[in-house]
């Protein structure tokens, strides 16, 4: 709309502004005419009928223009104006036939769209399944928003909740009137003496009012009450519905039946309804007061913290209760007697909120990768559709000229897109299924009908959303002159530059994803490169879970002897060279942490004492690992239960506690006893890259006492781990029917398992990056092919005039590389932001890591070069005569 000057009447100025709000096509076609006609009509009315009539005319026109803006945009966006004129069912089969024929004639385009949709929607479906699994994980409890968990916040982990020490729990019980049934619980793994051998269960020790706090109901029998927790009460247990069905075969007489758990005969008094189970994988509950402490008595470990569950009193909101709890936390911090050592804040969170946080936490890397792939897929799809519409514009124009209605053409285009979207949705299901297996998402992401429905719906909706507006625009009627223009293959309707911009965006996003993958891979390799301190090959680790020994046995027989016998039994298995037991293992299976003091130095307060990992090992442990002593000796038969207390320290502790002094012969005070240092070992990697040199004190299990249920036995092997494993199982079962083998893995597998989180994040990101790069490749290839096809005549002329083929090749490749360079530059800027956000997930990799950034850019250039090469070679092979004749 041209400006008519400031002297234009107010209505004309208003109208001019309103016209700017019309859809671009309408504005370009009618805008100037509309304003001009209004101006001339207004002048005429004012001349003939006076100012009042002109004013009424102005008002009517402006109001109609305002309504017109809405109507025209509705027409463009929703397409109602076009579609409603098509009678339902009219010619659909013909549309499908035409669309199928058109797609078979352009297999490259069809394959590109289906591939793009399959990858993009498949990735989104995986994310949907993963989130879905978190949603279904939450128990279906009545009024579950009233169920709250209390604990301490853990720095750096928004969904982590640390348990409360007894003093804090007591304070909460005393001072929080808004909470009912404040109940402590702790998870443990007892050994169930089953008919087919000992088996480990997921169990929980709970306060009697745990189920009241939860609002859970019994399917059969009863829940716990106060009498179950009184000293001397009969041992009882409650089963989860799943455990009752799976482990006890729906036994109708389960109530009153006696089961042996951790060598204790317990009467089953109830079965909890399946949807009311908490924590989610629990199979059995026992009263907390009868369960005993979770760790060995006398072990110098942190005071036992327990998870805490409560129910909001009627009328109390989570916010009010949360404020109350934070207030209690502050009061406790101020009270030195019960101050929390680590100063963590108390936190109250409802059960549904915690589940949501955990879901969001776990899926965040995944979500970002998927979001980027989806964006790239949509951008690519937009580009492909634009190119397709440009290519079919002439055919549409001819059909319009022959009398076909716009609605019919739009519908045919939409049919074509729907067909492709449907195929893409089906392909996405395949991608989701294969992706789940390849990414090892396990039970968390089991694809369901809902997931598949989501994939198909997303495919159809995204296809329609992207295709509708371009289809309506492409189906508009064109004049003769434009039709003639369209007939010339050298014409460019502007889609070329638009598509190039889309590809620049795709390359930028792919570069950023490549950088993220590269950084994660580099971080992973850095972690993996941290040497374990021993040769992990040829080692088998067995985790044995033993039911606690009965009190009579403990009194009459040193439990460590039973362990010695077990280790000896395992060592006799053919293929085992050496065996040793330990409370913990490297790679995240660590022993407890406690404090120590160097005997002979100034005594320190409890807070100031240095802390170390307190490891208990059998004499064969270091030999089985193949770790020689750096100084002094290892443990042997001299170090029995009644012998003087001895210890081995690792080099890290020797450096911290003794600096340049020789630690051999010095003593450490632990748990009120003096332990003489007889050896110094190499520092073994525990699995925490932030603290690779963790101080460790090793003590003989015989002297510490073997009362912890879980013990690892390390086996140095000569034979095949698979055959040795069977022998180990038989040996252990023959030795003690109440010892369950809960883990049997090579040390290499344990190390891999320790890095499972990093490995999973890396695998996800690399997979989605590969998907993004593939989609980008398709997009770039399409753009270059389009550009070459458009310039066929030009290339023909150049070649006819004697231009060497290499020059034409260079022209096309240069164009492709220019697009890649622009996209790469934007991508690096985006990557710097992304890597800064990922900083905490990276180990020894900065956001500005030159290797990562350079490799990503090189990767993108390589992809661009490959994508541009085939079209460039086609350009060189253009026959000048054919090109000029055909165009």
């Amino acid at each position, binding site marked *: 709309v041209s400006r008519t000057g400031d002297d234009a009447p107010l209505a004309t100025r208003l109208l001019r502004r309103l016209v700017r709000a019309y859809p671009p096509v*309408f504005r370009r*076609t*009618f805008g*100037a*005419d*509309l304003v*001009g*006609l*209004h101006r*001339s*009509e207004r002048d005429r009315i004012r001349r003939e009928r006076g100012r009042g009539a002109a004013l009424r005319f102005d008002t*009517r*026109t402006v*109001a*109609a*223009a305002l*309504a*017109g803006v809405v*109507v*025209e945009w509705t027409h463009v966006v929703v397409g109602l*104006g*076009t579609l409603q004129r098509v009678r339902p069912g009219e010619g659909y089969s013909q549309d499908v036939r035409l669309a199928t024929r058109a797609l078979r004639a352009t297999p490259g385009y069809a394959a590109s769209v289906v591939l793009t949709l399959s990858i993009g929607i498949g990735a989104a479906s995986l994310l949907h399944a993963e989130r879905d699994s978190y949603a279904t994980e939450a128990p279906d409890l009545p009024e579950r928003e009233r169920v709250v968990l209390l604990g301490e916040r853990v720095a750096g982990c928004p969904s982590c909740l640390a348990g409360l020490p007894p003093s804090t729990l007591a304070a909460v019980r005393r001072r929080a009137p808004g909470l009912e049934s404040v109940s402590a619980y702790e998870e443990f793994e007892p050994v169930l003496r089953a008919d087919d051998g000992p088996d480990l269960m997921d169990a929980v020790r709970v306060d009697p009012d745990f189920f009241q706090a939860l609002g859970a109901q019994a399917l059969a029998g009863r829940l716990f009450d106060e009498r179950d927790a009184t000293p001397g009460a009969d041992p009882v247990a409650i089963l989860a519905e799943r455990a009752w069905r799976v482990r006890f075969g729906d036994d109708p007489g389960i109530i009153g039946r006696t089961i042996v758990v951790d060598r204790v005969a317990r009467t089953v008094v109830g079965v909890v309804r399946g949807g009311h189970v908490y924590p989610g994988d629990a199979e059995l509950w026992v009263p907390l007061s009868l369960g005993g402490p979770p760790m060995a008595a006398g072990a110098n470990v942190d005071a036992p913290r327990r998870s805490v569950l409560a129910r909001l009193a009627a009328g109390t909101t989570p916010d009010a209760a949360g404020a109350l709890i934070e207030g209690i936390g502050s009061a406790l911090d101020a009270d030195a007697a019960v101050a929390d050592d680590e100063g963590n804040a108390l936190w109250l969170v409802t059960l549904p909120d915690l589940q949501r946080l955990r879901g969001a936490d776990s899926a965040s890397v995944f979500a970002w990768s998927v979001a980027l792939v989806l964006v790239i897929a949509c951008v690519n799809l937009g580009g492909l559709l634009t190119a397709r519409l440009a290519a079919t514009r002439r055919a549409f124009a001819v059909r*319009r000229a022959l*009398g*076909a*209605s*716009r609605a019919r053409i739009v519908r045919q285009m939409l049919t074509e897109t729907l067909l492709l979207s449907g195929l893409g949705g089906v392909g996405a299901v395949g991608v989701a299924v294969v992706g789940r297996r390849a990414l090892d998402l396990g039970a968390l992401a089991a694809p369901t009908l809902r997931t598949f429905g989501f994939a198909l719906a997303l495919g159809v909706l995204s296809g329609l959303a992207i295709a509708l507006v371009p289809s309506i625009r492409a189906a*508009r*009627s064109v*004049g003769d002159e434009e039709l003639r223009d369209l007939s010339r293959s050298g014409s460019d309707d502007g889609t070329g530059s638009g598509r190039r911009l889309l590809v620049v965006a795709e390359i930028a996003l792919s570069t950023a994803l490549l950088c993220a993958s590269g950084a994660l891979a580099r971080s992973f390799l850095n972690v993996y490169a941290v040497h374990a301190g021993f040769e992990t090959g040829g080692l088998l680790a067995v985790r044995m879970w033993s039911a606690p020994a009965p009190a009579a046995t403990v009194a009459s027989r040193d439990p460590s002897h039973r362990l010695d016998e077990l280790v000896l039994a395992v060592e006799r298995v053919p293929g085992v060279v050496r065996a040793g037991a330990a409370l913990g293992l490297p790679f995240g299976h660590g022993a407890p942490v406690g404090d120590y003091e160097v005997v002979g130095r100034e005594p320190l307060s409890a807070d100031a004492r240095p802390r170390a990992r307190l490891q208990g090992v059998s004499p064969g442990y270091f030999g089985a690992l193949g770790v020689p002593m750096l100084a002094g000796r290892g443990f042997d038969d001299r170090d029995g239960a009644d012998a003087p207390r001895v210890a081995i320290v690792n080099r890290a502790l020797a450096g911290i506690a003794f600096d340049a002094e020789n630690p051999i012969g010095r003593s450490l005070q632990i748990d009120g006893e003096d332990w003489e240092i007889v050896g110094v070992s190499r520092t073994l990697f525990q699995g925490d890259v932030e603290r690779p040199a963790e101080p460790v004190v090793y003590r003989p299990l015989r002297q510490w006492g073997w009362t912890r249920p879980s013990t690892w036995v390390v086996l140095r092997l000569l034979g095949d781990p698979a055959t040795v494993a069977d022998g180990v199982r038989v040996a252990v079962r023959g030795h003690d029917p109440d010892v369950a083998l809960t883990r049997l893995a090579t040390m290499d597998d344990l190390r891999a398992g320790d890095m499972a989180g990093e490995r999973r994040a890396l695998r996800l990101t690399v997979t989605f990056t590969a998907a993004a790069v593939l989609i980008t490749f398709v997009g770039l290839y399409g753009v270059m092919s389009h550009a070459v096809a458009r310039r066929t005549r030009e290339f023909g002329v150049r070649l006819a005039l004697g231009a060497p083929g290499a020059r034409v090749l260079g022209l096309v490749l240069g164009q492709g590389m220019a697009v890649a360079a622009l996209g790469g530059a934007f991508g690096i800027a985006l990557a710097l932001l992304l890597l800064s956000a990922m900083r905490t997930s990276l180990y020894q990799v900065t956001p500005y890591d030159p290797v990562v950034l350079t490799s990503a850019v090189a990767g993108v250039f390589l992809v661009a070069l490959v994508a541009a090469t085939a079209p460039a070679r086609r350009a060189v092979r253009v026959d000048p005569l054919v090109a000029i004749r055909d165009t």
Partner: protein
Amino acid sequence: MSLVLFLILAVLRERAADSATLLAELRRRAPSEAPSIPALYRHVRRGLDEGWLDVVDAEHSEGPGRPSRLYELTAAGRDALRARAGELATFSSLALEGSDEGALGVTADGGDR
């Protein structure tokens, strides 16, 4: 097809016309149905979309004012006009059926009784 678009096609059946002429003709032939200026262009757009109108001259000028587009009826528009006129005639005859003077109080030729 709306009545306004029908009237636009009817005007164009006789001769090509620009928007000012169309507006004037509509006001003359059916004052009660004459659209506002923005609505006129909406109907013209619809006619173009359907392929019933075509632009003969993008910068047509008859006087000192700004040039405007000149529209003409296409073959498809002529067919649509004929079909719609037939529908309207059938509708009128059905509405007047059974009464010499017409059930609606008008005579068959459209004049007041």
